[in-house]
C-alpha cells in the first residue's frame, strides 16, 4: 500500500528524520501534522529523503513549508538525499506558494435585520421598476408587431402554442376532471343533508366556468410554461445567445417574448374552456354514479342554471392570466445573470410570482364582475 513512514531519531548534531515510501496527496493527512510539529523545534534538523519513492506537488509543498518556516525562525534545516526531481518540484511549488482567501466572509453588520429589510425593499422597488420597463418594452414591441404583421414570427408562435397548449391537454384535462369529481362528490355530501342534491349541478357548473376551470388551468400553465420560459430565456442569456441576437439585429423581445406572449394568450382561453368542460364531465359522472342523475338531465339542467355571463367571465379572465404568466416568465428569464444558480432562482420567482399575480387579479375580477351585475 501507499504509505510513508517517518523515522525520528536524536543524534549528536540534532534531530534526524528519515522518510521512506511515498509522499503524495494520499498520505498527506498523516504526514502533514507530524512535519508541522517540527517547524517550531529549534534543534537542528536533518531530513533524509533518500528513501522516498515518489513525491508529488502536495508532498513537495509540505516539505517546502517545513523548510521555509524553520528558516524564517532561524532554525537550521538540512535536506539530504534530495533528487533533482524533488528539488525542482519544491522550487516550483515555492514559486507558486501564496495564501488565498477561500470565500469572502459575510460581513457582520450592526442593525443586521434593518439592513436586510432595507436591501429587500430596495430590491423590490428596483424589480418593480425593471418589470414596468420590461412591460413597456413588450407592449411597444407587440404594437409594432401587430402593425406590421409580417414581423410576427408565425412559426415560433405556432411552435409555442403547441408546447403551451396542445401538450398541456392531457394534464390539464386530467386535473380538471378530478377537480370536477371532488367538487361534485363533496358538494353532494353537504347538500344531501338538506335534501338538495340536485343543486350539485348549479355548484359544479357555475364554479367551474366562473372560477376553478380558469384558475386551475392558469396555475398549471404557470407551472408548466411560465417556468419553462424563464429557464429557456435564462439559459440563453447565460450562453450569450441573447447578446448574439442583439448584435445580429434581432430584438430579443420581439424574437423571444412576443411569440411566447401571443401563444400563451391564445392558448389560455382554449385550455381554460377545455378544463371547465372536463370538470363538468367529472361532475356529471359522479352525479350519475352517486346521485343517479342521468347525464342528459345534468346537461339540460346545466343550460338552465349556468348563465352565459359565467362562461364569459371565465373566457375574459383566461387571456389576461395568459399575458401575466408569459410576461412574468419572460421577464424573469431576461433577469438571469451570472451563473446556473440564477436560472433556478429566477425560474422559481417566475412561477411563484405569476401564480400569486393570477390569484390577486382573480380577486379583482370577482369584485369587478359582481359590480357589473354579472353575478
Amino acid at each position, binding site marked *: *500500500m*501507499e504509505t510513508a513512514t517517518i523515522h525520528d531519531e536524536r543524534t549528536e548534531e540534532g534531530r534526524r528524520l528519515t522518510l521512506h515510501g511515498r509522499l*503524495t*496527496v*494520499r498520505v*498527506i*493527512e498523516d504526514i*502533514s*501534522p507530524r512535519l508541522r510539529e517540527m517547524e517550531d523545534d529549534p534543534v537542528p534538523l536533518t531530513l533524509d529523503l533518500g528513501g522516498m519513492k515518489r513525491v*508529488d*506537488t*502536495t508532498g513537495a*509543498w509540505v516539505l517546502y*513549508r517545513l523548510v521555509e518556516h524553520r528558516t524564517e525562525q532561524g532554525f537550521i534545516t538540512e535536506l539530504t538525499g534530495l533528487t533533482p*526531481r524533488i528539488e*525542482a*518540484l519544491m522550487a*516550483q*511549488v515555492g*514559486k*507558486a*506558494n*501564496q*495564501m*488565498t*482567501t*477561500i*470565500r*469572502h466572509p459575510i460581513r457582520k453588520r450592526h442593525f443586521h435585520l434593518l439592513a436586510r429589510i432595507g436591501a429587500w425593499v430596495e430590491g423590490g422597488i428596483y424589480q418593480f421598476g425593471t418589470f414596468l420597463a420590461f412591460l413597456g418594452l413588450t407592449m411597444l414591441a407587440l404594437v409594432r408587431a401587430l402593425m406590421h404583421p409580417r414581423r410576427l414570427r408565425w412559426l415560433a408562435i405556432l411552435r409555442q402554442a403547441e408546447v403551451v397548449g396542445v401538450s398541456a391537454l392531457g394534464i390539464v384535462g386530467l386535473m380538471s376532471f378530478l377537480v370536477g369529481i371532488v367538487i361534485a362528490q363533496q358538494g353532494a355530501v353537504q347538500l344531501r343533508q338538506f335534501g338538495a342534491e340536485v343543486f350539485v349541478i348549479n355548484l359544479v357548473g357555475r364554479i367551474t366556468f366562473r372560477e376553478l376551470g380558469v384558475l386551475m388551468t392558469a396555475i398549471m400553465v404557470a407551472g408548466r410554461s411560465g417556468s419553462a420560459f424563464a429557464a429557456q430565456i435564462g439559459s440563453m442569456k447565460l450562453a450569450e445567445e441573447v447578446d448574439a441576437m442583439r448584435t445580429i439585429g434581432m430584438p430579443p423581445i420581439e424574437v423571444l417574448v412576443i411569440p411566447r406572449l401571443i401563444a400563451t394568450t391564445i392558448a389560455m382561453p382554449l385550455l381554460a374552456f377545455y378544463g371547465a368542460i372536463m370538470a363538468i364531465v367529472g361532475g356529471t359522472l359522479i352525479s350519475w354514479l352517486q346521485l343517479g342523475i342521468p347525464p342528459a338531465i345534468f346537461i339540460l339542467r346545466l343550460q338552465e342554471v349556468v348563465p352565459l355571463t359565467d362562461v364569459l367571465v371565465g373566457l375574459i379572465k383566461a387571456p389576461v392570466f395568459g399575458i401575466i404568466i408569459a410576461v412574468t416568465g419572460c421577464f424573469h428569464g431576461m433577469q438571469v445573470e*451570472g*451563473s*446556473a*444558480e440564477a436560472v433556478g432562482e429566477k425560474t422559481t420567482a417566475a412561477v411563484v410570482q405569476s401564480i400569486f399575480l393570477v390569484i390577486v387579479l382573480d380577486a379583482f375580477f370577482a369584485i369587478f364582475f359582481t359590480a357589473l351585475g354579472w353575478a
Partner: protein
Amino acid sequence: MSVIKDDQRGPIIQVEGLRNQFGSQIVHEDLDLSVNRGEIIGVVGGSGTGKTVLMRSILGLQEFAAGKISIFGKPITGLAEKEELEVRRRFGVLFQNGALFSTLTVAENVQVPLREFHSMTTELMDEIAGYKLGLAGLGPEAGPKYPSELSGGMRKRAALARALSLDPRLLFLDEPTAGLDPIGAAAFDHLILELRDALGLTVFLITHDLDTLYTICDRVAVLADRRVLAAAPIKELLEIDHPWIQDYFRGPRGRSAMAGDRENRKLAGT
C-alpha cells in the same frame, strides 16, 4: 479493495478498434491509439473529426459502439465502482469551457476533489488551494471569486488548478491554450512541461495551437478519416504524404510555428 498497480509497464491508455456513432453519422471507425507513460501526446484534427468525442470515450463519459479502451492496463468498461473511482482519481481533466462549479468560489472548486477523496484539515486544504492556483498562474485575489466573475483565460487557469488538485498521473486537456493570450499560452506550455518532468505526468492534449504542438508534444496524433491517421513526432509526420497533414503543418501558420521552434532550439543550444 483491489488497488490498481502504478508501476505497470506498457501504454497508459490503449484504444483499440474504437467506433463512435451518432445516428447514421460515424465519427470514429476502427480507431487505434496508444499513449505511453510520461509522454505528452497532442491530438489534432479538423473540426468535427471527433477529438473531444475521443477524449470523452477514454474518460468513460461517452458510450461507444464498439472497441476496447484500457487505462492503466484495465478496460474502462465494466469496472467495479471502487476500481472506477480509483482510476478516476488519477485523472485530471480540463474541459474546453472550464466546467467550473458555478456556485462555488474558485478556491472551493480546487478543493472539491480534495474534500471528496481525502479528509484533511481545513488549514492544509486552504494552503493547497493557494499554491495550486499559483501553479496555474493565478494570483491570490482569484481565490474568493466566483467563476462568473473571471475572464475566459482565468477560468481556464482555474480549471487547470482544479484538474491538478489531486496530483493526477494522467492529465486530459481539451484546447487549454485556446483563448489565452500568447504570453499566457507560452507560460501554460511551460507549466505543463515542468509538471511532466517533475511528476512524470502523462498528458493527453487536444489543441489547435501549433506552437504548443511544436514546443511540448512528444508525439502528435492526427485524427482524420474517422481514425488516427498517424501518431508520431512532428518531424515524422511531415514526411507523411497526406493532404490534410501537409496542409496543416506546411500551411503558413505551420511554417511560422516551425520557424519559431527552430529559433528556440538555436537559442537553447547557445
